[in-house]
């Protein structure tokens, strides 16, 4: 420990009036410009979560339209062109605008609170990443509403999405949306990794990191390794389309399968970086509602890591029907089976936790229990898809549609809804209604199974995916109708959730700081947390800081000595979270927002003219320069602070 950092860890109470001063220092500025300049991780996190939920609802409405179209054979509610746009946008929205971002949004809000920090590591970058995400999402929906929605599937296989068979600008919008979400996803990942590695409360060693934070850390690393593959792919695609390169043009020496490798090298890990945050929610909620720490913490952490490594060795199981050599396929089958082991380990550990705990049946726990039923089925059908021969039959059929929804809704959305019920009181200061919550759960659970279980049978009975209709004599009508009834039930349950959230936000019971009696640090902050999160940043002495006494006998219990009038924090060492140095965060600024607007102009204009990259770069350079322009007064203040004893 350096002398200076020792000085910053004391055992005296914060001075009176500190709260007001800290609030003034850490809060976002008022007014519209202030709103656009906000960089507090909670403001950005809230906007991020609400936006992602908005895209979830939009994607859900698209799904409902598809289900209405497929409810009976030879239906003419939507034609093939619109249907193709709808299913493409549904997949794209759910994967790129909902599932991945919503997990990152939850992390932006929760991770700093859970590790006892006052901010994410790069707050202005967090804001920029959010705006980029929002603008990208709005762009693709604007394109759809103008009749230019992408229509080659969320996977955009070439040559269908290429220049020869995907005329117009439709698939360029898709490729550019990928660029938007990649920029956002990668920046948030860097942000989360740095936050977790450098801003943890003193004493929160690697062995004491909450499992949810572990999940988000691993997820962020996965995103950094997986997303560049699709970014490369989508850039090559848009170059093929806009400036006539031939990366995927087999007639000119390009390769059609190259796209599939690049896409699935990202696409399969993506499933896991949607699923792993779900596992994090599970661990957080199960511990709280079983009134004990999760059984087998080291096994849980190792399982998450093992999953993240194995996830990169599965991508070819999306390509078993192509010309991949047989021996190679056997390797990917083996990997697909092996990845079940860490997931099974976690499931067994959770069951052990519930079996040895005392159970408090509340809505968040119900959603988590829904996970077990649905995800286990999805996992088992995943084993079937991992087997080459079975996959050859059910690949690209409704069996896969059933499987992927069992995995993603069961593995990520059910825990996420549980997480929303669980952390709603922390975020808003009010409890959600239990009765509506239980209705929400049971309708969602029943509706989900009614909607998706029949699809297993449809797939085996020969119904391929991505068909806008089907002839009556195929006999697929009744099960499709049943599935549509289930989809409507899900829609009703989500509507109940919205009603519950909106009503509870105004009229819900006032929440205490720790309404569920949980153990992690976010519950030590007020509900909702003050702008500065913790009046005195905590020092951690164990894995369950709010449940057990500190194991570091004689250690202080909170950090003091940090400036009140400057956004100052204590950075700690990556492994042992020992105090390392003081770190000053930037002030709120309008420039991340302006930079995002400029980047958006460049990205959208480049769909229409490659020259936009040239003049657009200059356009982006201006606000980015302003963003990093040092202010004399601030620098002097920081210097003075550094020289202070």
């Amino acid at each position, binding site marked *: 420990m350096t002398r200076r950092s020792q000085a910053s860890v004391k055992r005296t109470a914060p001075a009176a009036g500190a709260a007001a001063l800290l609030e003034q220092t850490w809060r976002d500025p008022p007014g519209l410009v202030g709103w656009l300049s906000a960089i507090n991780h909670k403001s950005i996190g809230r906007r991020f979560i609400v936006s992602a939920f908005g895209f979830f609802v939009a994607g859900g409405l698209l799904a409902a339209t598809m289900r209405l179209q497929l409810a009976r054979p030879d239906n003419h509610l939507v034609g093939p062109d619109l249907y193709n746009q709808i299913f493409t946008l549904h997949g794209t929205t759910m994967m790129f605008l909902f599932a991945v971002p919503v997990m990152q949004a939850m992390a932006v809000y929760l991770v700093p609170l859970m590790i006892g920090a006052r901010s994410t590591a790069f707050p202005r970058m967090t804001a920029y990443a959010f705006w980029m995400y929002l603008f990208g999402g709005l762009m693709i929906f604007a394109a759809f509403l103008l009749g230019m929605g992408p229509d080659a599937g969320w996977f955009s296989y070439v040559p269908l999405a290429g220049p020869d068979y995907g005329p117009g600008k439709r698939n360029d919008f898709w490729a550019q949306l990928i660029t938007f979400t990649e920029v956002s996803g990668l920046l948030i990942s860097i942000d989360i990794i740095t936050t977790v590695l450098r801003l943890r409360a003193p004493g929160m060693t690697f062995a004491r990191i909450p499992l949810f934070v572990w999940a988000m850390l691993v997820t962020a690393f996965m995103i950094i390794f997986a997303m560049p593959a699709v970014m490369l792919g989508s850039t090559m695609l848009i170059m093929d389309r806009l400036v006539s390169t031939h990366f995927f043009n087999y007639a000119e020496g390009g390769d059609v399968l190259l796209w599939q490798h690049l896409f699935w090298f990202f696409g399969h890990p993506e499933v896991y970086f949607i699923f792993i945050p779900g596992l994090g929610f599970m661990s957080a909620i199960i511990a709280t509602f079983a009134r004990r720490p999760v059984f087998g913490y080291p096994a849980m952490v190792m399982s998450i890591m093992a999953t993240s490594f194995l996830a990169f060795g599965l991508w070819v199981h999306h390509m078993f*029907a192509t010309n991949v050599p047989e021996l190679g396929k056997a390797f990917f089958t083996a990997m697909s089976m092996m990845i079940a082991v860490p997931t099974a380990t976690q499931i067994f*550990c959770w069951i052990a936790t519930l079996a040895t705990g*005392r159970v408090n*049946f509340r809505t968040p726990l119900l959603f988590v229990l829904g996970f077990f039923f649905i995800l286990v089925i999805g996992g088992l059908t995943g084993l079937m898809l991992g087997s080459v021969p079975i996959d050859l039959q059910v690949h690209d059929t409704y069996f896969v549609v059933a499987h992927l929804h069992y995995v993603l809704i069961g593995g990520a959305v059910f825990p996420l809804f549980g997480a929303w019920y669980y952390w709603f009181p922390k975020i808003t200061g009010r409890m959600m209604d239990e009765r509506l919550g239980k209705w929400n759960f049971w309708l969602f659970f029943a509706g989900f199974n009614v909607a998706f279980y029949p699809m297993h049978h449809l797939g085996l009975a020969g119904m391929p995916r991505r068909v806008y209709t089907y002839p009556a004599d195929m006999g697929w009508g009744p099960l499709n109708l049943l599935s549509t009834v289930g989809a409507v039930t899900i829609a009703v349950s989500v509507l109940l959730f919205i009603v519950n959230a909106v009503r509870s936000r105004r009229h819900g019971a006032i929440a205490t700081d720790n309404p569920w009696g949980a153990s992690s640090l976010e519950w030590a902050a007020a509900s909702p947390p003050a702008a500065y999160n913790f009046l005195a940043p905590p020092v951690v002495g164990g894995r369950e800081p709010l449940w057990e006494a500190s194991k570091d006998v004689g250690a202080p219990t909170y950090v003091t000595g940090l400036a009140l009038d400057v956004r100052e924090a204590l950075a700690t060492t990556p492994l042992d979270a020992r105090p390392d140095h003081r770190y000053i965060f930037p002030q709120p600024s309008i420039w991340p927002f302006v930079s995002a607007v400029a980047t958006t102009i460049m990205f959208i204009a480049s769909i229409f003219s490659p020259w936009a990259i040239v003049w657009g770069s200059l356009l982006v350079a201006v606000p980015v320069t302003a963003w990093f322009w040092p202010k004399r007064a601030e620098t002097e203040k920081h210097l003075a602070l550094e020289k202070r004893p």
Partner: protein
Amino acid sequence: MNAIQNALQSAGPQAAQIEQLWWLTLAVCAIAFVPTLGALLWSLWRAPRATEATPADTAIVSQPERRTRSVVVSAVVISGIGLAFLLLASVRTDHALAQLPLEDALNIQVTGHRWWWDIQYDDPDPSKIFSTANEIYIPVGRPVVITLLSDDVIHSLWVPNLHGKKDLIPGQTATMQIRADKAGTYRGQCAEFCGLQHAFMAFTVTALPAADFDAWRAAQLEPAAQPTDEKAKRGEQLFTSGSCMMCHAIQGTTANARMAPNLTHVASRRTLAAGTVANTPQNLAAWITDPQKIKPGVNMPAHHLPGGDLDALVTYLGTLK
């Protein structure tokens, strides 16, 4: 149409192997699912109830939970064994699929087009090569090697009753080995999303006894029947002098383009437009007049022929048995 399309009603050794593996895997998965969910429900039923005010049990952390650990470890080990078993079974089936005896195999080349299938029967004797569209005929009990090509985007050939699917990838050549052991007509359709009419890119595989197949083949090798009556003659003239011959072929006439289905024996087919509508004179007339109404997005242009001409053309095509 009475053709079946179902992965669990195998009519040949390849699909039968997969079907067997499917039932085995399903059984193993069921064996995994029941005790796992059972353990969960039993735990929930047995565990004491608590509220958020119940003090958390952290004593557990300081003393190792040996019994729980051994239960969890055994469960993981048993899962591992189950997975290894499934892997073994899968690789064995995969091996069996690759071992289909191919002596005296029939060679067929299928080229995917948006949105129909060009089918060419290969033969060492070039005069015995012929092509047809959307309806494959094979002899029962004889292996068939299908060579898969694509002319535009990626398609996937799938006849679930006979085998799993295989992609048709532009710029690449793939093969698929099948055998039908039961006579019958099996439906298949494109399984890789290929654009607007992916939903209506169907085909049938009809397995015939050897003698019937030989007769069918001999008939297919024949050029188109010469029209005899005046109306049909007028139809042929319209076909070969109009825009039809720009894309279609009819052996025995001057039409030999390969942009669209070969129509030499079109009247012997069950459906039009790759399984979209039944092959009736009314449907054929409607198809020629306004194909977009029947199959939106299709490449066939509309032909607004005067009533008599349309009738003559349909009559002529109707003679092409």
